[in-house]
């Protein structure tokens, strides 16, 4: 890097600009100081908060279909619900959000949801 600095002042200026832009981009992405006065591009990088889903029947089917659109926390934050509620929720994903899940797969997913968040006395 330092070897470039012996070149012309134009190179110096260009390099300085690049570092400056890079530094401000980094700042806006990772800290709370996204002022944006230096660059029109405001950018953040979303952090990862991985979640290990509870084990249960058809976990793989759940993971394959449900996690495409949303975090597993949409399920794990819920209290226990009846089969009727879980069937309704899965159906909503298909009917409203257009999730490509076949009826047999929907049944499998409901089984998983019932296993991890079904009524306590039927577990």
């Amino acid at each position, binding site marked *: 890097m330092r070897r470039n600095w012996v070149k012309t002042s134009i190179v110096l200026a260009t390099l300085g600009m690049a570092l400056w832009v890079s530094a401000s981009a980094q700042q806006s992405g990772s800290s709370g100081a*996204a002022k944006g006065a230096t660059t029109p591009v405001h950018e953040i990088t*979303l952090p990862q908060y991985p979640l290990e889903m509870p084990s249960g029947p058809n976990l793989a089917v759940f993971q394959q279909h449900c996690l495409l659109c949303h975090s597993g926390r949409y399920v794990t934050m819920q209290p226990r619900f009846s089969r009727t509620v879980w069937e309704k929720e899965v159906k909503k994903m298909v009917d409203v959000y257009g999730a490509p899940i076949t009826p047999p797969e929907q049944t499998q997913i409901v089984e998983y949801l019932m296993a991890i968040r079904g009524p306590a006395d039927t577990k």
Partner: protein
Amino acid sequence: MLAAVGGYAAAVRFLGEGELLSSLLPSAWAEGLASAPQMARYPQKTDLILLTDRPPQLETPLRYFESELTPNDAFFVRWHLAGIPTSVNTRTFRLEVGGRVKNPLQLSLHDLQTKFEAVSVVALCQCAGNSRSLFEPRVAGGQWGNGAMSNARWKGVRLKDVLDAAGVEPATVEVGFRGLDTAPLPQTPRFEKSLPIDRARDGEVLIAYEMNGAPLPMLNGFPIRLVVPGWYATYWVKSLSEITVLDQPLKTFWMDTAYRIPNNAGAEETPQQLSKVTVPITRMSVRSIFVKPTLGEHLSVGRSYTIEGVANDGGSGIRKVEVSTDEGKTWSDAKLGTDLGKYSWRQWSAPWKPTDKGTYRLQVRAISNDGRQQVTSQWNRSGYQRDVIEHVEVVVA
């Protein structure tokens, strides 16, 4: 059996099932039952309570409500679809204004900041499902405690001025709004909301480019969001990019199915008798919550303590807040904090010097300037518009 008892649900919702029952006992309070929820730190934000990570739904810890205005980095976050904007070029970003208008517009952020009068308002932004985890029986949805709301000073331009510049045609009924967020699947409907034309043109609805004197954090809707003072946050479309003037009501899941409440004053129904007619949720109901003390907090007998909280309604302002420390037998007026305007929440405080040891159930209720009061019980299928008189149990030792 495991059905959580009313107001405990928020504090115990992160606990395992086994811990839940024991946590209902007074002895558990002494052991600090409110086990720490998982916190998450997103860009431009401080540590917030993590409900979901994709898309992010982050709840504001109650201690931030000790400030009149919620700091931008502590302001709650709620997105519907996982394709949220993470990069915005303010040089190329445009707000499109179209539909039934004479002159469709494409406005840059600079246009908004220079070609229209700047106005500001302090307004509470509250999720329709704030405190959903307190509903009993429990309902499905984001299991928020009381922190799905935040109070900020918004600066921007009047939606009315922008619509006037575009020239709204006669016989229009609604204005539709979209943001930059999209869903992973192309067939999923875009998040889209509408306001009745009169509300859209009342001069109070803003297109905000600043909150609390700074640009909006990306997760709160950078570069601009709709601010609909007095109405629930579902209308406050983030990263607003499209405004469409409509000559018939917007038909979308987000208006026709979601965010609807029973068609009665209290948004009331029962699981056995669901309301047949529902309407879109709009104006916030009157409500007050405790900020201090928190559930299970230990207070000292004979020592003065200041109970604190916040109260809000949908735009008439708060007339009165009353606190009871004796199971509702007597109520005393709390002292109201600074009046930041009728759309802001109102902080309140009440001194209390407990004279006896034991567990106490404190209650708080607010009355709005238009005479609305809180209720003693409430339920609806979606867990919206909570306005039950809240309580908190504390231990005096």
